[in-house]
């Protein structure tokens, strides 16, 4: 590549161009990371609110709820009694008083809480961190180039995401409340305000996601172009680290999937604001509610793989580095990801088995869904193979890598139950699905994110994260996570529906009261454990132990760059001589052979 004179020479930058409207991929990556962590708190807080309601239905929240009425009478008039009255009059009253009269979560508010929890976690936490933060930070560094192909687009991608987040947050405060039709936004509930009483909340939800879609689109074009065109000399496709492969594949999925959601959202907005009926079946003809589901899931299933593939990539790095071994079956790992990316397009109907879609199609989608379990299994076996006869170092990032694999196994196996159409009749729309989602997305993607943050932190900020705090955070999270989400499988087997605000209204769910309380306690523990991570993150940025250039002794190119990484990344662009996982090569003195070390050159170990 062209040697970038002006990129590497030192020029003074103003605060604004360095930290705010930065064009540097590393800064944009960090911006996405902090953005994601902030939204993580919002999303998590919402979850704790509705978990309280599930464990103690109609009981006021301890802090907000110590209302006079409750103190005096031991109960409060809320819930179903007030539902109808409140729904259209909301604008006249105070926000908290409308949504949580006397500290009790109203049913309509409850719907909004879980809708926004999922929307924020999926679109504003996991994707921005995995794709926005890791993608931006790692791609140029790991393929050996100075920046992204289109730095201005890159900046645009971040600021569009900020705009989307602002719009999404504003939605909480508009009259009628925020979107409350589930993160899946099924029409006609979402497409006609009369069914929920939600007015501009749902519109803003759709508009915000449209903008977030543009942000992803711009980012993915950038990633694809960069990876195809700007690899360092010698960096062939089959020498790319798996995390780069995963981000490459995800960028392609984003590019193809998001426009489908955008179209669906546009139609939804027309239905809501212009009186069209794309998603409503009227007697005079019109559209079809199932059209929304097809469009949503045609996007949605690739989307769930967007949520996991970079996690798989990160886990692969962690496991290879800390087993000091090459990835077992590197090529089959790549092919498995490609297979997932292809098959991901033909399985969307598994979300619609009970939707009224023609039953014959159910069988077809069951078959394709079963097929997609195969590459997932291949990946798992290869991770095990990578650890086989390794020299495993139990660093905190590795603990997260191991947690990723074990949690993903549970999530993948629960997928088999739901892929099975007859079994899905029973567990569809129950907590079984909730358990599955969280085992793959929290147990999978988030553990990979945590591990990745701790692993690359020394390159990002030139310091280590505090290891004691990281370990406490890991173990608390791991235990509380399993206590929170494993019992949800049991709730699902008992038939406990998802998205209900008060399970105690049902005779057949009475036995689950204790379990719901246990889950809520665990969820609060889980939530508070995350404070440790965030504290550690910001504290270590300034106070952490200073890190050397390549603290984990990794072979890939990002560790060739000086720490802190300067503008332009590398003094001279490195040349790549070998694959990314040359650990413990026989005959070599060190147990790691950097990608950039010339053949037969004398080993220059440690820095």
């Amino acid at each position, binding site marked *: 590549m062209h040697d970038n004179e002006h990129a590497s020479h030192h020029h003074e930058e103003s605060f604004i161009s360095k930290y705010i409207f930065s064009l540097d991929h590393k800064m944009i990556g960090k911006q996405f990371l902090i953005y994601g962590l902030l939204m993580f708190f919002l999303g998590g807080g919402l979850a704790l609110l509705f978990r309280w309601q599930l464990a103690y239905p109609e009981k006021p929240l301890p802090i907000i709820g110590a209302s006079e009425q409750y103190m005096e009478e031991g109960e409060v008039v809320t819930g*179903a009694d007030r539902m109808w009255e409140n729904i259209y009059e909301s604008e006249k009253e105070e926000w908290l008083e409308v949504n949580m009269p006397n500290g009790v979560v*109203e*049913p309509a508010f409850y*719907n909004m809480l879980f809708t926004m929890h999922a929307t924020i976690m999926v679109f504003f936490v996991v994707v921005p961190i995995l794709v926005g933060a890791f993608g931006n930070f790692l791609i140029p560094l790991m393929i050996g180039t100075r920046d992204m192909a289109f730095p201005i687009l890159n900046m645009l991608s971040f600021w569009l995401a900020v705009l989307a987040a602002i719009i999404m947050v504003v939605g909480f405060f508009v009259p009628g409340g925020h979107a*409350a039709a589930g993160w899946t936004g*099924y029409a*006609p*509930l979402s497409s006609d305000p009369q*069914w*929920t*009483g939600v007015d501009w909340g749902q519109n803003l939800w759709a508009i915000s996601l449209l903008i977030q879609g543009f942000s992803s689109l711009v980012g993915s074009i950038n990633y694809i172009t960069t990876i195809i065109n700007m690899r360092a000399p010698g960096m062939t496709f089959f020498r790319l680290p798996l995390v780069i492969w995963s981000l490459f594949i995800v960028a392609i999925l984003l590019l193809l999937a998001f426009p489908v959601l955008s179209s669906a959202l546009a139609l939804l907005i027309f239905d809501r604001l212009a009186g069209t009926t794309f998603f*409503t079946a009227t*007697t005079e003809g019109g559209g079809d*509610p199932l059209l929304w589901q097809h469009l949503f899931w045609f996007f949605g299933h690739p989307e769930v793989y967007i949520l996991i593939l970079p996690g798989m990539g990160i886990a692969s790095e962690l496991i290879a580095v800390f087993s*000091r*071994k*090459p*990835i077992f*079956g590197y090529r089959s790992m790549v092919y498995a990801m490609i297979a997932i990316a292809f098959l991901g397009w033909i399985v969307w109907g598994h979300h619609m088995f*009970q939707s*009224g879609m023609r*039953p014959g199609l159910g*069988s077809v989608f*069951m078959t394709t869904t*079963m*097929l997609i379990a*195969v590459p997932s*299994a*291949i990946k798992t076996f*290869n991770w*095990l*193979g990578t650890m086989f006869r*390794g*020299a*495993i170092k*139990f660093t905190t990032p590795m603990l997260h890598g*191991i947690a990723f*694999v074990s949690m993903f*196994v549970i999530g993948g*196996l629960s997928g*088999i*139950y739901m892929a*099975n159409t*007859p*079994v899905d*009749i*029973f567990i569809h*729309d*129950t907590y079984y699905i909730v358990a599955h989602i969280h085992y793959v997305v929290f147990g999978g993607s988030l553990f990979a994110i945590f591990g990745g943050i701790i692993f690359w932190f020394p390159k990002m900020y030139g310091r280590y994260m505090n290891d004691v705090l990281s370990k406490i955070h890991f173990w608390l999270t791991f235990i509380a996570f399993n206590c929170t989400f494993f019992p949800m499988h049991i709730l699902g*087997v008992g*038939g406990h529906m998802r*998205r*209900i605000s008060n399970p105690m*209204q*049902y005779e*057949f769910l009475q036995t689950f009261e204790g379990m719901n309380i246990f889950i809520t306690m665990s969820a609060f523990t889980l939530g508070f454990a995350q404070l440790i991570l965030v504290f550690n993150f910001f504290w270590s940025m300034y106070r952490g132990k200073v890190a050397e250039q390549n603290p984990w002794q990794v072979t890939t190119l990002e560790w060739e760059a000086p720490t802190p990484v300067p503008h332009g990344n590398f003094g001279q662009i490195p040349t790549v001589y070998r694959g990314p996982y040359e*650990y*413990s*090569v026989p005959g070599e003195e060190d*147990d790691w052979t950097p990608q950039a070390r010339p053949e037969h050159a004398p080993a220059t170990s440690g820095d």
Partner: protein
Amino acid sequence: MLQWLPENVSTFGQGVDNLFYGIYYLTLVVFILVMGTLIVFLIKYRHQEGKRADYIEGSTTLEIVWTAATTVIVFGLAMLSYPQWNNIKSPTQFPDNPDVVVQVSGKQFNWDMTYPGPDNELGTDDDLKLENELHVPVNAVVHIRLTSEDVIHSFFVPQLRLKQDSLPNRFINVWFEATKAGRYEIPCAELCGFGHSGMLGYLNVHTQESYDAWVQERWP
């Protein structure tokens, strides 16, 4: 874990449960094998001073073996499931000549049951409309004509192992044959608005005599 399943009271429910159990044992075995291997590896191959990892890049044979094995297993599972699924959901395979036909319509936040009456036709004078109460005889084939008046709801009877979304302006047929008299809940399983939680009907499965008496009372 599966002892938490509600009691099954439908003819096809046993088939569903068998698959459930089959998958449960299958995944349990896989889980124990994978986790066991993982734990053994973590202990056995932990980093020890002076010991290096073996340089192993992979094994084509193993890749082929485990790809083939998982493919065969998941396809086998799919094969076992097709007939059960069709039996429950494909209208062409429903038992003919239902003993009872009822139209069930979801609306925010109730289940409306409409019986066609003695003339067996909906939309006539002898129709009977009931809110949230469905009455059927035990050991009889019941056809439900499922629809909705506003948004999507989902007709769920846990003990029948039956769930089907109901859609506005569409009629979806489902069937069941209950094997045990009793009163069962019919929660709505699809988010349908602020009253979704608590949208609840009841399925009353009568003995034949008590059902006949019920019919006698409604259409004397």
